[in-house]
């Protein structure tokens, strides 16, 4: 039987299919559909130090083969997470990864320190790429000094596997990937959403309360795939591929381009079972192609 397991730093994952942050809640919502322990990992909804109400409604707009969102990291803060949510989800038999956010480096550090204490959180995904907040977020992720600074400081305190989530809204993704690798990131995940905009021509107003928002879904796949491929040739740490993955073929494309694992985001809104279908599809692909391990796929694009 095909072995779907993958290793990132010291963590062993059952399979390379994770659900992306902000698209799979705190795992409980998916568990209403199926046993989330079948997933490689669940990236939890982004958390911040303090409660955030997020942006005003409307927060989403449908676009061609994609959507814009402007959620703005709505969450009740890390303490609430620790007291009320973590106890409910900590026994899921999959890797739970915290998506850590901040307006300042200090906030990132404080959240990280608190998450350090949570035994059942396997890793931290440092979100330096959220386009939907006024302070922090993407601002860190679009310049090398910014990305370096927050990675360095968080790395100092972070006792868990550290994944840094990159923004695609940059001229050169390899620079940023190398910058965070240089500061001790164990892995990079990419991409977060592209900054986009939608307008109601008849009403002559933006469709999002924030005017601009983050574009996700199949529309962005070709660009995300290119960035993963570029990053794969620039850094040595494992890459987690994200962006418009809707089926097993998409996931395999990301792995061929160099991703050691993938995250499924917007596809979950179409059908929460898609991550499981992707796991099956990868297994099927490996059988058909006589591949024994995920390593036989990762970076194996023939040029």
């Amino acid at each position, binding site marked *: 039987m095909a072995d779907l397991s993958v290793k990132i730093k010291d963590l062993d994952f059952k399979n390379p299919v994770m659900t992306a942050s902000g698209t799979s809640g705190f795992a409980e919502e998916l568990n209403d*559909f199926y046993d989330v322990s079948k997933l490689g990992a669940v990236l939890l909804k982004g958390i911040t130090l303090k409660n955030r*109400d997020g942006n005003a409604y409307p927060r989403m707009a449908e676009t061609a*083969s994609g959507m814009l969102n402007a959620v703005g990291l709505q969450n009740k803060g890390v303490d609430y997470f620790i007291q009320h949510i973590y106890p409910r989800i900590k026994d899921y038999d999959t890797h739970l990864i915290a998506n850590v956010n901040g307006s300042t480096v200090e906030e990132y550090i404080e959240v990280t320190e608190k998450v350090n204490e949570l035994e059942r959180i396997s890793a931290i995904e440092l979100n330096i790429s959220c386009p939907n907040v006024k302070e922090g977020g993407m601002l860190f992720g679009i310049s090398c000094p910014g990305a370096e600074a927050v990675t360095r400081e968080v790395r100092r305190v972070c006792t868990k596997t550290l994944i840094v989530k990159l923004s695609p809204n940059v001229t050169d993704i390899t620079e940023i990937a190398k910058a965070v690798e240089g500061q001790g990131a164990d892995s990079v995940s990419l991409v977060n959403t592209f900054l986009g905009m939608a307008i109601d021509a008849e009403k002559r107003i933006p469709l999002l309360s924030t005017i601009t928002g983050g574009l996700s879904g199949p529309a962005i796949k070709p660009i995300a795939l290119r960035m993963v491929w570029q990053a794969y040739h620039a850094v040595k740490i494992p890459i987690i591929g994200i962006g418009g993955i809707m089926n097993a073929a998409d996931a395999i494309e990301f792995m061929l381009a160099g991703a050691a694992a993938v995250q499924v985001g917007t596809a979950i809104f179409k059908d*929460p079972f898609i991550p499981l279908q992707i796991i099956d599809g990868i297994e099927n692909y490996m059988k058909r192609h006589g591949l024994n391990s995920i390593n036989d796929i990762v970076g194996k694009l023939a040029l």
Partner: protein
Amino acid sequence: MSLKEVQNLVIIENTPLNATNFLIRLVSIKPLPKFVPGQFVNVEINNSSEIFLRRPFSVFEINYSLNSISLIVKILGRGSKKLTEIKAGESVNLIFPLGKGFTFPIPNERILLIGGGSGVGPMLFLAKESGLNPDNVHLILGAKSFEDHINIDDYRQFGNFYFTTEDGSLGERGFVTQHSVFQNKLKTFDKIYACGPDAMMKAIAREAKKSNIFCEVSLENLMACGFGVCLCCIEPTVRGNLCVCTEGPVFNINDLKWQI
């Protein structure tokens, strides 16, 4: 046991109810879970490059012996239009049951149900399931004109019906809040339930608040997922921004931060 399902259902009926609304009836091959009036389903509308996300629709009728779900769909844009064009025999993917429904009345309460447009559906569903003596169930249904009203003959047994139309072609002329029952007898009701256009619900909420009557409304915020993972569908409430798809779509007006 899974609490929510993703299932292909077969459309067995897709017929115009009136000038603006369609009745879509779908059957499942499996027994359906219990639905509370106000709950909804999220429908995948395929075969178009323009429709990427699902579209939410409230349940109008459930037949547990036939395993059928009915929806009343109003053509608003590209998705609802496509949906009304799907022929009987084709299958459509649904996620259900979603959201929290209306709070059931307690025996002997007098309730007023107010529906506008496709919002009539959940109101009829609630009238049927209320468990009250029909004398205690009163419904005001509003529409632009008589041809926008749907035939409610099958429901007459569950309550007392009043109609309004903007052009006076059926029932009283004007909006639902201008109906004599609403104007004169509002205080005789223990609970008010409403489903319909935003402006209508706000007008109702204003009067309910003034008269200090329990009032629940069903909201139709834009949704990306429908099951609580995206946080796109939020409504500001006294408990903060809540997801309409999991904490609603039915809200007590006292929880909402409406400027009314």
